[in-house]
Structures are given as C-alpha cells and as structure tokens.
C-alpha cells in the first residue's frame, strides 16, 4: 500500500507583502517631509482650536437653510441626471447585453472617463462657461456620478443568471426585450441600493461644490472659515450634517424595508 507524500508547505508570501507596504509608507513619510512632531507636541493647541467651535452661532439660520435647500436641490437633480445617463449607458457596458465588442469597449471607456474626471474639475469648467450658480454643479455631479452608476449597473447586469437570460432569448425576444424583462427586473435591489448610495454621496459633494461657485452652502463655509468666524463655521457644519445624517438613516431604513 502506497502512502501519499504530503506536499511541501506553500511559500507564505504575507510577510513580504507587509514588509513592502511598510517600506513604501516609510518612504512616503520621508518624501513628504511630514512633521508629525508638531502634531504630537501641538495637540494642546489643537484642543484649543477645536474648542473654538463650541457654542455655534445660528443667527443667520434662515440664510443657511436657503443655501441648504439649494444644495439638496443640486444633489437631487444631479443624481437624477446620473440615473438617466447610467441607465442608458449600462446595457452597452454589460458583456451579456451589449450588441458587439466595439460598442462594449467604447461604453466602458466612456464610463471610465466620466468617473475619472473629478466632479470639482467638471464644475470648474462648467462655471467658467456658464457662470456662477447651481446649474454647473448639477451638470458636474450628473456627469461624474453617471460614470459610477453606469459601471455599477453594468456589473449588476453581468451577474444576472445566464439561464434566465437564455430563457427569454429562447422565446425569440429582441435584445431590448431581454434587457427589460430579464435584466432590469433581476437587479432591482442593487439598482435601488446603488442609487441611494450615489444620492447620499451627491448631497455631500454638492455642499463642497459651493467652494468653486457652483451654488450651495460650501461657499458660505469657506467664507466663514477664511475670516476665522469659527462659531459661524460650527453652525454651518451642523447645518450640513443634519440632512446628510438624515439621508444616511433614511437610506438604511429603506434598504431594510425592501429586503
């Protein structure tokens, strides 16, 4: 009776990875010339600094709320724009729904491009061509996050059970019909989850876009910080925080309900 020999223990690569990562981190710290010392020794100053944010000043609350409403409107419109664009592009970027490889590659690259260009940069470009105001923000958010939604949707579509797709194809349905009956209905939950995630993300980004003049509350925050009006800044931060947290909870609740 032959006994099988135990194979040699496979070479454990983990220590190499860890060493490599630590080395890179060390090099980065050296290169950036970061002075963690001032941070460590200056922590008392930091405490004093953050203390200035206590007792926020809500005297201008009505103005802040108007800006907040604008921020939310920008986020909402931007997300809807992204949804429409994402829904249109995603089927072409899904290997099981796309008509041919060329269209697939083009759609994928287009979505990559939309994702890679930062929305802030797009906002800058649109502000330069359309002037200050919320509309450049809507377009910038819409185009940038369309890239994300398109990719998410395409990946969800690709994961649909091949058998289900084949069954509808076998009835003689056209490509679009296969998409509408086998594709989108099968990914309802992911669709909603991704859309809510992007909506949340856009509410946060819309606040920031104000910094470049694309409307919203970011401009006010920047102004108050630059003029060292800390109590006002604290109030603004709280005003930004409330809807974002509310959204966070709302989307968690919605996701639970739809399981």
């Amino acid at each position, binding site marked *: 009776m032959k006994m099988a020999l135990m194979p040699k223990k496979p070479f454990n690569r983990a220590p190499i990875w860890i060493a490599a990562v630590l080395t890179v981190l060390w090099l980065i710290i050296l290169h950036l010339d970061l002075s963690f010392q001032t941070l460590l020794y200056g922590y008392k100053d930091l405490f004093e600094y953050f203390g200035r944010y206590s007792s926020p000043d809500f005297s201008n609350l009505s103005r802040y709320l108007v800006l907040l409403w604008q921020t939310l409107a920008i986020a909402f419109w931007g997300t809807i724009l992204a949804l429409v664009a994402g829904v249109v592009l995603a089927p072409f970027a899904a290997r099981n729904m796309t008509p041919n490889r060329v269209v697939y590659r083009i759609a994928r690259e287009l979505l990559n491009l939309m994702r890679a260009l930062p929305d802030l940069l797009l906002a800058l470009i649109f502000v330069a061509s359309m002037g200050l105001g919320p509309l450049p923000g809507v377009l910038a958010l819409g185009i940038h996050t369309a890239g994300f939604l398109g990719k998410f949707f395409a990946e969800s579509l690709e994961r649909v*059970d091949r*058998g*289900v797709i*084949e*069954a*509808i*194809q*076998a*009835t*003689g*349905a*056209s490509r*679009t*019909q296969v998409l*509408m*009956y*086998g594709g989108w*209905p*099968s990914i*309802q939950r992911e669709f909603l989850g991704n859309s809510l995630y992007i909506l949340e993300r856009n509410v946060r980004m819309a606040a920031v876009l104000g910094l470049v003049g694309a409307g919203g509350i970011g401009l006010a925050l920047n102004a108050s910080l630059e003029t060292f009006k800390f109590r006002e800044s604290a109030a603004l931060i709280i005003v930004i925080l409330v809807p974002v947290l509310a959204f966070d909870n709302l989307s968690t609740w919605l996701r639970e309900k739809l399981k």
Partner: protein
Amino acid sequence: MKKISFHAVEKRYPNGFHALRGVSLEIEAGSFTVILGPSGAGKSTLLRLVNGLETPTAGHVAFGPTAPSRSSLRGIRSGIGMVFQQFNLVGRLSVMTNVLTGRLAHRSWLGSIFYLFRREDIAIAREALERVGLVDKAWERADRLSGGQQQRVGIARALAQRPQIILADEPVASLDPVSSDDVMQLLRGICDRDGITVLVNLHQVEHARRYADRVIGLNSGQVVFDGAPGQLDSISLNRIYHRDGAPHDELFSAALAYA
C-alpha cells in the same frame, strides 16, 4: 409542421471538449422523443443546437427542407419553446408576466418596453396557465412557488409561444418524483393534444420507457441507440451509459437494472 433534421453536426467547444461527433438524425413532426445518456454525452448541446443557443462547428440543423439562416433566428426561436432544468423564471416578476415573456416575439418593440400587452396575448397566457393548472397563482411572484410549480410555469411560458416544437433540457432533474411525473404527463399531453414535436433530455430511464415514442441514446457525442422504448434492454443500456475507464462491474449493472 416541419421535421427537425441534424446533418452530421459536430460541436467542439473552445476549451477543446468535443461534445458532438457527427450526429445525423431526423425527428418527425409531432413525435415525442427522449434523449438518454450519461453526463457530458452531448444531450444539452444537441438540444441547444435546435434553437440556436449553440452553433455547430460542422454540419447543420434544418427544419423541413430549408436550413435556418442567421437573420431569422428570432423568428425560428419564436416557434420553438424551451423548458429548462433550473426553470429559469424571472423570480421577481409575477407568474403571469413570466408566461407573457413567451409572447414577446409577437409584440411590438415599443409596447413591450412599457410592459404593455394586447388582450389576445393575455388571453393566450391565461389559457396556457389553465393548461398547466396554475391560473390561481397568476399574480404571485414567481420565486414564491415550489419547484414543480415553477417548472409548470416554464411550460406555460413555452406554450404561450404557440410553438411547433418544445425542447425540454432535463426538465425534471430538480424535481421530486411526484412533480416529476406531473411534468412528464403534461409534456406528453401537450404532444398528443396539440401535435407539438417534443424533444426531451432525461436521465431517468423509467420516464423514457413510460412516455417516449422514440428513444435516442447518446454517448460521448455519438448516437449509440435509436429505437422504441420497448427495445431498451440491458445491452443497449450498457452501450448508452458506458464510460471509458469505468469498470463494468456488478455495481454498474445493478444501477442500470434499477433504471
């Protein structure tokens, strides 16, 4: 009604697997044919060649005197219904909608995108559901049904196409014995009453004996048996289920004796 003919079809997959090696067959219109064979014999491939889910690497499949052309694939598919081992229903959609996907080939593009159907289509779907005895479940979500029920919905979907041919790829492999009998009886009934050509892949020899007009045995991509179910003796079964390298011992014969 046209007969299906396979003309020396061969199928070699990209990974090198030679699924079919020169099969030539003629299936008479309106007949009930069962294909038996071990796993990997090429049964699924043979079936999927009929509605174009696979294309042959040599030879061709013809209906009547004409050979199918690429452009009429959807047209051909609309006349062929298919029933799958895993049912392949769209779980999130209702039973009725699933059956209605059988009518998609006959619907206008625009209407079907919006899930709009004509009265005739809904009537046909309802009739199909009555045939399989599931009208009372018409508005339920498809994934809430039991396995046997889902398979009957699959058959209703095929029936809704008003097909000339029904292909069934291991339709009862995932079902318990009682549901399994129900489904086989349904298929046989459809063949007898509507004169639809039925081609079924099975590995339960007992079902073949009870329901088939003609049994085709496939092994390693070649036809090794072709005759009436009464002619299925132990010699032919050995030939069908013979596996290269597997010993022909008592276990093998006993398994076939109980088949």
